[in-house]
């Protein structure tokens, strides 16, 4: 695929759930190129999860409702492909890892292999993928455990391993580390950085703005179903509207409060430099 090809495109997309009074997303236009790592953030009810559901095709497929505009995933119109057909190339990690496990497997390794098996991947290949995915997210030592015995954090890793074993080209992650401790979070983000480096496109919903700025070269800020800013984190979080309605990373807030002149830093590295210059 050429570098300029797109992974995910929204063209004037509006969507309302069935029987909902207002639209969950309104007139969204967004184009994500192959290989990008985009962070999506915004307050509650901003439409972040709906964005993921639309990209996966689960909305309107599962939820009914009205969809206006066009969603193009890996250069195919979302209306032309079912969720199942898309599942070979697109993976969605739900907020709740408990419901992501199949509920039909008695071992963690069998659970990881569930997706590839559904796709008719050969047994040897499944075993290799399972081993690789478990090692990546750090659950190899849990291989023989029962999925139902795992803690929330372990389940979250298991759910991610189940997706990685499918070798997706586009990963949609809805708060992928919400259940993990800081060290576990850092480990998963390392995995994502590796996937990003290997050319996989990642769209990630995240509330922790510092993490978002540290990791994602591009941030989309949403409020009440609309995109209010889209660009590099430094630009996005230096906008007043974003600061007011979405919030700011700690470093941005500190620089503002300390009376430094804008643009304010959004990452630790830049904050150290900016504050350090004033100290010197």
């Amino acid at each position: 695929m050429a570098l300029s090809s797109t992974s995910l495109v929204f063209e004037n997309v509006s969507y309302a759930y069935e029987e909902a009074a207002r639209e969950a997303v309104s007139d969204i236009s967004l184009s994500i190129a192959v290989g990008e790592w985009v962070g999506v953030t915004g307050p509650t009810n901003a439409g972040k999860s709906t964005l993921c559901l639309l990209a996966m095709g689960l909305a309107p497929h599962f939820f009914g409702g009205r969809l206006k505009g066009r969603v193009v995933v890996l250069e195919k119109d979302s209306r032309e492909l079912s969720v199942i057909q898309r599942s070979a190339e697109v993976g969605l990690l739900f907020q709740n890892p408990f419901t992501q496990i199949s509920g039909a497997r008695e071992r963690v390794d069998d659970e990881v292999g569930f997706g590839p098996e559904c796709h008719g991947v050969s047994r040897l290949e499944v075993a290799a993928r399972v081993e690789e995915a478990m090692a990546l997210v750090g659950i190899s030592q849990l291989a023989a455990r029962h999925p139902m015995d795992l803690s929330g954090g372990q389940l979250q890793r298991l759910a991610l391993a189940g997706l990685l074993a499918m070798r997706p080209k586009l990963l949609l992650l809805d708060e992928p580390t919400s259940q993990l401790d800081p060290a576990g979070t850092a480990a998963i983000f390392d995995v994502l950085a590796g996937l990003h480096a290997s050319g996989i496109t990642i769209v990630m919903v995240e509330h922790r703005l510092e993490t978002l700025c540290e990791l994602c070269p591009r941030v989309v800020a949403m409020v009440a179903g609309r995109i209010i800013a889209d660009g590099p984190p430094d630009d996005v979080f230096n906008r007043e509207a974003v600061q007011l309605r979405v919030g700011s990373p700690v470093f941005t807030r500190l620089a503002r409060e300390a009376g430094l002149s804008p643009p304010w830093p959004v990452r630790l590295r830049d904050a150290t430099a900016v504050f350090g210059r004033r100290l010197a």
Partner: protein
Amino acid sequence: MRFAYPGGVEVYPEPGLTLTLGSGVTALVGENGAGKTTLTKLLIGLLRPSAGSVTVAGLEVAKITVAAMARTVGYSFQNPDDQLFERTVQAEVSFGPRVLRRSAEGIERGVAWALRACGLEGKEDVHPHDLGLSERKWVAIASALAGEPAVVVLDEPTLGQDYPSRERLRSLVRELDDRGRSVLVVTHDMDFVGEACPTAVVLSHGRVRYSGPTSKAFADHSVIQEAGLEPPHVDSLARMLGLSECVSEADFLSAWRR
């Protein structure tokens, strides 16, 4: 105090160690599986210690039923959907004080305060399941507060919460402190710990690794690493600039101005 799950996972604070949680706001932090939830369940008697004893607000937990402990300890669980069942937010929040048979005016006062503190005013008549996950979480927190318990346990209150919601949590915790309540916050959110919790207990592999002021909790690198923690972002920045013991934004700004 020593405790073992029926299955055998043991949580054993160091031999002879007494963990005393005073009044004020305490953060309980540690890696996944460190024993945080076990410790909080011990506080309300959902689990019983296999040795030693747990005393909360002068009551020996082993001698009282869980339901009776609920008079003293308000417990908000991680997943609100494990408890919501009433048809309105108002009924849900007043359920605890009602089964605890508080007086009518006590219920009214407690519920009104809890609804206000949790930002649920105007939503009293909404069906809890018509709310989003973040708001359902607030209903669960309000339910834990409505009985005006002396001790409040909040399990992962910041999980999935946006910035305004976290700000509200901060002020809620401060208000509880002002009212003389003890608050125990179980969390992975170190920024929140730094901002809202003056004391911290670090648990790792079932042992208490640190117990004291939050400002010093992140000083020992080996403890931090073992417990899977990371210092608050403010702390990282302060360290890079050679400022010490800044775990909250206010700490940082006052150190900076000096």
